[in-house]
């Protein structure tokens, strides 16, 4: 297969789910089984093709970047610029090929799982249609070779996310959550949009190649490195929104209103990872300052979310905050320059988090079934305090769930151990080189918290006794179509898929396939500590980083095992063996507990400021429009009418008065002189004689 064919196949994989979407949207009622098989089949094909693409890419053209562009819009001969087309296109490099596999694997398994989970849903066909739309949009981000198509796909995944979160839109909370997700991510998108504007206005192109080439050639936006940093950070703000990073993370927990497989696909494995993918895609153009911002945002996010996760009781909410936290890890990894580690963690996270969500879906499915059977509409099927003891009834779900939990906690022999260790090694290396020790500190701390809250979840859900013992009789393991995806995801979460060495991934294929890209920003804007460390031997910063990571690898491993072990131990002490009483701990840390239970009050803060402020302003403007502006308009009309009334009166009284007056006067004289017109000749004769007499005296 040559490069062109490979790219063609890639584009086909991208377009197929769209075909499915169109089919299902218009004909889902008329298709057999509302078309679920069509969409799932398409995704199966897509998965197979993605695997072929990945293997062909890695074996035949490991270093090639295959891309193609076409003119989408032509502005013609633009004054001052010359001929100016807008080119768009697609690209396939190792990053894209791997991401495609991530997306299609999870998407296919989620489709499969949904066949069981969404059975008898009111809008079954529509659900699969939107899954198809999502997959299409997501793959668009992956294979785009330009900012424009990326932005377009970026918004379209937002749309599909909105539609799927609001799948059960009869519920007010669901439609609210969808709206919130769309709006909050759109706030981030504005940043991204402005970042793209800066780049386009300066480089007259949306193509990554053109923009990177220009920057590498020393052409900076507005001729300043500050603008390059700004552009990087602005684009990253888009990633903050989509990847639910602090301070725009608030939409993701609410997004759990969507069906659980959707949470697995969109809000855990793929769409929320789009921000991370974008940062990886643009990695070379971030300046040191921008990368530092990314690293700190990642670290802060990881910390905030992990603390919140500790106090949550809704199984999906715990996983949601865990997702936010893990996404923070990925950003941290990329920000400190551990590029491969950041993306590797995206990949392993996709498996284990999709697995965790699907596992939770399996649990919720079983709980709902049991509750329905008991005629209980009060009990929350997602609250882990209502669970317990599910282990015996749902062995497959349990064991795979444990496997995923071990993976996310970073226990050896799992893929999570490999990727998380590398991220932590990166942060430690960066800390030791640059003195930003807070980053590794948070990194390791969060690793401990993660192990704790995940095992708390496992123990409360599956271990011990069920809250209402007789309910357990109606808890059943989910059907095969749902457990099969769990098993597959659990298997590929084992270490040997990525590296034969269970304690280090740096010798594995992932690292060979994804070497950190060479930074294109001016040397003065690359991380100073890394540049300085390699200055004498003229070693590239990325190499310095790799070497330092290698050096701190042993320390990292020991530390991370220690904190993870500690977290797991505490979880067992508190929830399994009951040696520690969580209630008394809650009592002791009172306000802190309330604070994290209430998710650091972000929602309340935003509600009180941005949302309420906007609505206030909106109402103010409405009032202004009706009262002030229309007041002036109507006032003008009233004043004009007043004038016209006056002029009317003036006309009637004065002008017409004069006219009529003239008439009256004339009439009066007429009346007076009428008397003289008697018609009698004698009288006229008297008047004539009198007149002559008077004239005689006058002219005498």
């Amino acid at each position, binding site marked *: 297969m040559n490069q062109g064919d490979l790219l063609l196949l890639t584009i086909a994989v991208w377009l197929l789910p769209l075909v499915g979407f169109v089919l299902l*949207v218009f004909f889902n009622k008329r298709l057999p089984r509302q078309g679920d098989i069509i969409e799932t089949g398409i995704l199966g094909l897509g998965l197979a093709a993605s695997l072929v693409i990945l293997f062909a890419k890695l074996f035949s053209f490991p270093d090639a970047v295959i891309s193609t562009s076409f003119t*989408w*819009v*032509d*502005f*013609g*001969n*633009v*004054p*001052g*610029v010359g001929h*100016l087309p807008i080119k768009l296109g697609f690209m396939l490099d190792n990053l894209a090929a791997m991401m495609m596999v991530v997306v299609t694997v999870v998407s296919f398994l989620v489709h499969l799982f949904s066949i069981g989970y969404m059975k008898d849903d009111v809008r079954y066909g529509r659900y699969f249609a939107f899954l198809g739309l999502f997959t299409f949009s997501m793959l668009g981000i992956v294979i785009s070779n330009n900012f424009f198509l990326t*932005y*377009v*796909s970026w*918004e*379209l995944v937002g*749309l599909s996310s*909105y539609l799927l979160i*609001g799948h059960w*839109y*009869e519920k*007010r909370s669901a*439609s*609210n959550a969808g*709206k919130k997700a*769309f*709006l909050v991510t*759109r*706030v981030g*998108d*504005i940043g991204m*949009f*402005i970042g793209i*504007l*800066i780049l*386009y*206005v*300066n480089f007259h192109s949306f193509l990554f190649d053109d923009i990177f080439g220009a920057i590498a050639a020393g052409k900076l936006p507005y001729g300043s490195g500050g603008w390059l940093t700004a552009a990087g950070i602005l684009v990253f703000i888009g990633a903050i929104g989509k990847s639910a990073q602090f301070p725009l993370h608030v939409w993701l927990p609410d997004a759990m209103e969507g069906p659980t497989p959707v949470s697995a696909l969109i809000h855990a494995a793929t769409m929320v990872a789009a921000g991370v993918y974008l940062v990886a895609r643009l990695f070379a153009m971030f300046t040191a300052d921008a990368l530092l911002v990314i690293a700190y945002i990642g670290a802060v996010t990881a910390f905030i979310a992990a603390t919140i996760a500790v106090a949550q009781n809704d199984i999906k909410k715990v996983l949601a905050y865990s997702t936010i936290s893990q996404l923070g890890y990925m950003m941290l990894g990329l920000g400190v320059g551990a590029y491969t580690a950041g993306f590797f963690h995206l990949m392993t996270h996709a498996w284990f988090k999709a697995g965790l969500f699907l596992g939770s879906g399996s649990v919720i499915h079983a709980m709902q079934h049991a509750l329905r059977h008991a005629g209980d509409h009060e009990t929350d099927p997602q609250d882990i305090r209502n669970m317990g003891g599910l282990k015996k009834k749902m062995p497959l779900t349990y064991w795979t769930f444990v496997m995923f939990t071990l993976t996310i906690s970073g226990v050896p022999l799992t893929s999570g151990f490999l990727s998380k260790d590398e991220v932590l090694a990166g942060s430690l290396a960066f800390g030791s080189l640059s003195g930003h020790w807070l980053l590794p500190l948070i990194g390791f701390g969060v690793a401990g918290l993660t192990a704790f809250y995940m095992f708390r979840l496992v123990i409360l859900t599956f271990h011990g006794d069920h809250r209402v013992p007789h309910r357990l009789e109606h808890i059943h393991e989910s059907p095969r179509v749902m457990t099969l995806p769990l098993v597959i995801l659990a298997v590929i979460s084992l270490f040997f898929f990525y590296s034969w060495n269970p304690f280090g991934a740096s010798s594995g294929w992932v690292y060979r396939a994804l070497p950190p890209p060479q930074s294109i920003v001016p040397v003065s804007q690359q991380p100073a500590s890394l540049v300085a460390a390699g200055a004498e031997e003229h070693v590239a910063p990325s190499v310095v980083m790799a070497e330092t990571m290698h050096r701190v690898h042993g320390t990292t491993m020991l530390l991370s095992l220690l904190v993870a072990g500690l977290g797991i131990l505490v979880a067992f002490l508190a929830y399994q063996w009951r040696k520690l009483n969580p209630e008394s701990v809650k009592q002791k840390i009172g306000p802190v507990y309330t604070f994290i239970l209430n998710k650091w009050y972000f929602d309340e803060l935003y509600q009180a400021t941005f949302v309420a402020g*906007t*609505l206030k*302003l*909106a*109402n103010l*403007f*409405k009032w202004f*429009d009706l009262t002030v*502006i*229309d007041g*002036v*308009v109507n006032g003008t*009309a009233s004043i004009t009418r007043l004038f016209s009334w006056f002029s009317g009166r003036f006309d009637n009284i004065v002008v017409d008065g004069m006219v009529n007056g003239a008439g009256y006067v004339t009439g009066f004289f007429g009346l007076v002189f009428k008397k003289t017109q008697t018609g009698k000749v004698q009288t006229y004769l008297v008047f004539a004689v009198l007149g002559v007499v008077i004239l005689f005296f006058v002219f005498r």
Partner: protein
Amino acid sequence: MSFQILGIGILTWLTFLPVIGMLFLLLLPKKSADAVRWTSLVVTFLQVVLAALVYVYFSRSLGGINTVAGMQFVEKATWIDIKSVAWFGRVHIDYFMGIDGISGPMVLLTALISFVGIIASWNIEKAVKGYFALYLLLDTGMMGVFVALDFFLFYVFWEVMLLPMYFLIGIWGGPRREYAAIKFFLYTLFGSVLILLAMLALYFSSSVYIDPQTGVFLAAEAGRAMGITPIHSFNLIALMDPTNFTPGSLLAGIGTSSRYIAFIALFIGFAIKVPIFPFHTWLPDAHVEAPTAISVILAGVLLKMGTYGLLRVSIPIFPDAFRAYAIPLAILGVINILYGALAAMAQTDFKKLIAYSSISHMGIVVLGIAAMNTQGVSGAVFQMFNHGTITAMLFLIVGVIYDRAHTRGLNEFGGLANQMPKYTGVMSVAFFAALGLPGLSGFVSEAFSFLGAFAVFQTLTIIAALGIVLTAGYMLWTLQRVFLGTLPEKWKALPDINGRELAALVPLAVIVLFLGIYPSPMLNMMNASVNTLVKFVTPVTAAAALGF
């Protein structure tokens, strides 16, 4: 090039076909309401066919704007020519029509929206004949404005459009129709007076040389050389050339305060039509009271006449004044975007909300125009077209629900998605197009407008970009309030959208989707003219300094 049917130019056909239809319609017996409807439909459909012919034969390489040679389908004949009128001298007014890449899309839009509007007018039962007669007259007025190249002719059409609109709102409108109609009429008339004054000032300042043999305009120097006596003229293209002004006259020269005043007068006249803040309050009232089809026309076509006037008249005739006022203009655009969006958010009447969203979306057009670079103006003209189709859809959608429920209160609905699934499907296209979702046409034009604007006004564009979130906010909130949630008991019997309503909406939806994915068919029509305009108004050196 010229294109004739039965020896008459296609633009004349396009413009006067509705009037011919109107005359025919007036001959029909009063009782045959259906014949009246079908006649109107056929007439507007023929207009669409003619517009399609214009599209097909339109040359993509001609620039237009300030040269007669660049104009297409030109028709020119002496309309009024009186050799000597007291102290006026020779009065010479041409019947001068032609289109370029700026007016071309508007011609297509007018034909399309007029056709759709007839479908939406089908259920008018009150004085059917009168309604459709006025409607067709309105159609002629709108089309005439977009094809006229003589200011006098332009003005005549501008006023012709006013009268039928007044009656259409005032007779067939809602409860406060008389207030709305009078407000619309007087407001627009106030603007017209300013336009008239500026037009007369231009006329008396101009001195144009006409070759006595051929009757064509000559360059000032050539005319002087031939010893021809110059005359005054309303010819828009001649007025764009500063050498065609009598030296020492009121509007001669460059950058004089009288030119600025004339620009402002024209601007206010056009701004009322757009409408630009603070001249916008006639719009919500007119929209709320107007019958559905008239709202569609109003938002779909009439608002564009304002921005079209800026592009066709104000800016190329007064490029000096425009350059001086570019920043205030951009600020007004941004105010429109944000003010309109926020005011829309506070509305509880569905139709009023859409009316305010129009104000917001037209702000993007103003911003793009103010940028006066290729991306900005392309975006602006494209946005004029797209807003025409998208907002037409939105008003049709409001009409559908109003016809059934007889209320437009946003808080009275809920859960219509399950009750009216097809309606909800079409609605989604329009709503998401309005909030600028990529893949739908509104996004492309908004993005281009912002691209252009950002090259010139960075801070303002960033502020304007907040509108993106606000728009998404009120659109999604509306969607949630009307379509999601649970259905109130009283709407359990609402029937889904019917075939006729779909026939009006679906063509628009297809265009919105198609141009969202592949905008080139429309952009290619505009490019040459947009570039000509930009080059003409902003000298290349200045454009380069601005970043483009």
